[in-house]
């Protein structure tokens, strides 16, 4: 079967600072791909201003499919919905304040040919702050000496020692989600970590491509993790610990369960 890639872009709101600028850069980064993805699936809320912007935006030759998310906005649920409705055999999770590097999907297709057994490809992510200053790399640790069993591959053992891996920009085989489930919306803060733990526990082969594939804006004001750290939704150390422990307990199970943090349960 031919490998086709859908990009899944969940959007909660356009009422955040510099949204238009971020969004334009993000979409331009898809347009600039040397090998373009086959589909862009946008799962957005019915916020009026956002809907208007998406309807009027010039996506050029990109094959764009838009779905309106009418329930309570939730990153994980919107991503899962986008994956379910995507047509590609593979999917990549995208965020409106990030950018793909122009070589990313070209390299993904190349590596798919070289490593047909691999079911997920992670990019080396360049993390920047909101002033676009380099802050570090992510996903690169799979190459660090004496860190993983096999250079470049993410394993469950590695994840138990180090959690800093991210799904944004990564390309997953859709079958993986059908077999082992998508994000678990009830898990706060560590849903990406739990997802990776679950995949590696089920022997999904995950490889980092040693090429810069993605630029991630860290701690943008209004982002999920910014809110966890600075807003009224701020998460305290006890709760961080709780969600980490939860991820480590829940990854054995495919299904999401309703889990709520209360200080007493910590």
């Amino acid at each position, binding site marked *: 079967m031919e490998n086709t890639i859908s990009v899944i872009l969940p959007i909660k709101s356009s009422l955040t600072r510099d949204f238009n600028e971020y969004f334009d850069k993000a979409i331009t980064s898809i347009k600039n791909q040397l090998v373009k993805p086959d589909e862009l699936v946008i799962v957005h809320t019915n916020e009026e201003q956002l809907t208007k912007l998406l309807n009027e935006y010039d996506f050029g030759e990109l094959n764009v499919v838009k779905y309106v998310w009418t329930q309570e906005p939730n990153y994980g649920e919107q991503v899962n919905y986008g994956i379910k409705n995507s047509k590609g055999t593979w999917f990549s999770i995208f965020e409106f304040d990030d950018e793909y*590097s122009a*070589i990313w999907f*070209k*390299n993904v297709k*190349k*590596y798919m040919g*070289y*490593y047909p057994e691999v079911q997920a490809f992670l990019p*080396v992510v360049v993390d920047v702050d909101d002033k676009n200053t*380099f802050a*570090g*790399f992510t996903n*690169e*640790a799979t*190459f*660090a*000496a004496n860190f993983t069993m096999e*250079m*470049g591959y993410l394993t469950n053992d590695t994840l138990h020692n180090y959690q800093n891996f991210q799904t944004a920009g990564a390309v997953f085989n859709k079958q993986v989600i059908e077999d082992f489930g998508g994000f678990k919306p009830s898990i706060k803060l560590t849903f990406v970590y739990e997802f990776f733990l679950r995949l590696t526990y089920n022997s999904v082969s995950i490889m980092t491509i*040693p*090429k*810069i594939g993605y630029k991630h804006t860290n701690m943008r004001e209004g982002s999920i993790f910014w809110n966890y750290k600075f807003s009224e939704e701020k998460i305290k150390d006890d709760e961080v610990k709780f969600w980490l422990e939860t991820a480590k307990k829940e990854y054995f199970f495919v299904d999401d369960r309703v889990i709520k943090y209360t200080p007493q349960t910590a």
Partner: protein
Amino acid sequence: MEINVEKIKESISNLRNKNSRIYFMVQDTKGNAKASVKFIYETALTLKKNGFNPIILHEKNDYTGVEKWLGSEYMTELPHKSVENQNLEITPEDFIVLPEIFGFVMDQIKNLPCGKIVLAQSYRYITETLQPGQNWSQFGFLKCITTTEKQKDYIEKVMKNTTFDIIEPTISEYFEPRKLPALPIVAVHTKDQSETINLIKTFYLKFPQYRWFTFKDMRGLSEKEFSDTLKECFLSVWVDDDSAFGTFPLESMACGIPVIGNIPNMQPDWMTDDNGIWVTDKTLLPDYVADFIQNWLEDNIKPEIIESGIKTGESFKNKEQFETSVLKHFSGYLTQRADAFEMQLNQIQK
């Protein structure tokens, strides 16, 4: 007189029939791969396979050998003899091929009646163990084999009265471009290990964001392990001021791996502006490596540097040419010596 004639006739017969012993002196690398020793073994094995009578000569009885890094074939196919506690049988029709680093042995064997050849693979060591004023010819070493034209030009101006032949080394067929993409590993080969350590430590201190890149010191590996490891790398770094040939960069280039290296004091003939990144200031090597890494991560490496490198490396993989050269020169040495004995015989018989 009768005995002399018979001995000369026997010598001529041995030379014409390639039965003359050709002793190749080697150093004990204690199991470490060394291109200069490999060259000697390959020369000897080529001769052996073509009916000559080469013998590997080592200093001590507990010689480590080359089985671990070069292959068992070289130990089993070639007879080995130790200089220690052994009276070597050396007759006038025999030859001793002595690497330049064994200059101190020349004085000890100057009275041996055999043919004497210096094998000078590194111009840097040609005077190392000689006393001031001494040269090879005064010890009877009138023939020298070296490995490059440039090296020959240099040495012949120093070692007068010696004639020179060139046998260009080859690199193994193992060295070919890898089919899978490279990993973020840098192969490092420096003359002194301290230079490798210094390079790595400096690099990590200056560029901590790249600490997930691995540096591999390419010492102490077998040829197969060496080529397998090399093929995983995306970059080679080579530092050797004294090199006259440069096996490591050529092997890297043959694998399609770009090389960053310093320009040796005697620039190799194969080194061009477009087949590698050649620098004059070694202190900048970590910076060059960091620049290269960033470009590699962004797929910005020009394919020309890889293509040109492969072409350069490939040009040294011609084993047939190497063997032809070895056989041509050694046949010539035996023939010349046989002819000299014929002349001597004719004079005696007149």
